[in-house]
């Protein structure tokens, strides 16, 4: 079957238009990146509810906070690097601390940004946003999940950070049967030899690896965690109990992201051996997004290798 690929930033834009149609209290702020973040789709549909702040992310976060204080539901968008990075303290103090109902839609997360290079490849956003009390942190894996996450973010009362990608990624969720809840992970493939817990575009890779491993007789449980915070502790502890070994996968630094969130939980409640797959403590560089994912070891073949090493399975 031919894979249908959609970048989750496009899903974000489409979901905003849908929200805008249903809810007059939705307003969108952008910082001169509407064509890239895809809030341009909302701008086209609702020009009087889209506000460009210019290249001023700090001010945009503050303005969005003010909008939330006036009872609106603002979505503030920029690249992950600037939304979570540059404007971190504004998000922390003007949105997080007062628990204002601002939704941050950050696109161009991770290495798969590609050619723009390391200055724009944000691999620290989960770490930064997770550290803010009360902040929901989500990273959807495909188009279906991304649109559901945006809808859920609107329905959630309080600040939410969402990371979307630039690279088109396969759509593997079935829209008809898909349900989404903030803070709930989903088991995509059952098994009890090892658990692979993944977020964002790496979930499809984890699923692919899981299927390959079946052919080797390894039953891996593949878990998709769109919500990195709050963590689905129950699901993770169950996986640790039943599988005994855990691998985490994220297009993010291995410092401070999903991997460390899982490790923190397990080390306190159920010490379990873990391998973290992610971006090691280094910067990326320019190149096609897919090639970078390959180079930095974030594809299914890499996950498969780590599983085999972890389970002491000799090569075919």
């Amino acid at each position, binding site marked *: 079957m031919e894979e249908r690929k959609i970048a989750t930033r496009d899903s974000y834009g489409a979901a905003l238009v849908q929200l805008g149609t249903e809810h007059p209290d939705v307003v969108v702020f952008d910082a001169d990146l509407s064509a890239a973040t895809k809030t341009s789709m909302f701008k086209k549909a609702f020009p009087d509810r889209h506000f460009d702040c210019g290249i*001023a992310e700090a*001010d945009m976060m503050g303005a969005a906070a*003010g*909008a939330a204080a006036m*009872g609106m539901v603002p979505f503030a968008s920029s690249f992950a690097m600037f939304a979570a990075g540059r404007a971190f303290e504004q998000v922390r103090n*003007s949105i997080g601390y007062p628990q204002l109902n601002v939704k941050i839609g950050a696109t161009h997360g991770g290495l798969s940004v590609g050619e723009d290079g390391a200055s724009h490849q944000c691999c620290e956003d989960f770490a930064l946003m997770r550290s803010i009390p009360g902040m929901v942190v989500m990273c959807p894996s495909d188009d279906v999940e991304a649109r559901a996450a945006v809808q859920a973010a609107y329905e959630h009362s309080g600040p939410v950070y969402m990371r979307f990608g630039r690279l088109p990624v396969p759509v593997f969720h079935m829209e008809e049967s898909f349900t989404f809840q903030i803070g709930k992970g989903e088991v995509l493939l059952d098994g009890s030899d090892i658990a692979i817990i993944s977020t964002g575009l790496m979930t499809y890779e984890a699923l692919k690896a899981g299927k390959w491993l079946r052919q080797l007789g390894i039953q891996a449980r593949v878990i998709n965690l769109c919500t990195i915070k709050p963590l689905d502790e129950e699901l993770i502890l169950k996986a640790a109990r039943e599988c005994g070994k855990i691998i985490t996968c994220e297009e993010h630094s291995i410092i401070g992201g999903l991997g460390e969130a899982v490790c923190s939980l397990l080390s306190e409640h159920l010490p379990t051996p873990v391998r973290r797959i992610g971006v090691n403590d280094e910067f990326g560089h320019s190149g096609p997004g897919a090639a970078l994912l390959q180079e930095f070891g974030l594809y299914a073949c890499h996950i498969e290798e780590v599983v085999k090493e972890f389970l002491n399975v000799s090569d075919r």
Partner: protein
Amino acid sequence: MKPEEKRRLMQTACQVRMGVIEATHAARSGHPGGSLSAADLFTYLYFKELNVDPQRPDWEDRDRFVLSKGHTAPGLYSALANRGFFPMEDLKTLRQIGSHLQGHPNMNMTPGVDMSTGSLGQGISAAAGMALMAKHQGKSLRVYALLGDGEIQEGQPWEAFMFAHHYKLDNLCVIIDNNHLQIDGPVEEVMSPYPIPDKLKAFGFEVMEIDGHDFDQMEHAFAKARTVKGAPFAIIMSTVKGKGVSFMEDQASWHGKAPNDEEYAMAMTELKEHLARLEGN
């Protein structure tokens, strides 16, 4: 302004100042200097300018006030308490565990506080966002933001000023408390923000310069602000840091230091004598 009204405002301002001294003395920390320089403004806003209702602090159509220079919370709290948003006794709980009066304003804890602030440069962006949304919602309410002269050394206010001009926020009134001092000394020695009026004009503001301790000038400026259409308004008020407590006046050292028992007694004596003179007038 009628002399009687002015005298009442002066009395209230004196009581607001006494609240600042009470609160920072009880807390043994806090920022009296900038609270006192802006005490007349806080008084004018909460007793004359702002359309607010202490009985309904969350009333949707109220005017909004954002204290962007959030460290001068004692001044804001004292004005709010004097206006009846919460009991005067609460002022003595400033900065203590269990108190709703945090070291810097918290909109979810203190009745009448419209935005959580404290990290300098951020409040003004929220105020501009509020003003933009008020227009979007078709509300006639106005938004006021107070910034320090040192605060505008941050870059973010200038982003917000650009935004305010771009979106023609004539319902936004920015006030700059030009008390000339910041923690490390005179603002022009630390990092000059001058000339402030020229810069704000260049950013598209209608600007008025006033004496921040003169209620007649304040009345004139705020009335003018309401008449300007299509552009934001800025009032740059020249003030004296520590105003009203002679040993604190024009001293950078009183930026973030609380009066000890002896200093508290001296300050309260001076303010009480001043109040008595105003009442006897």
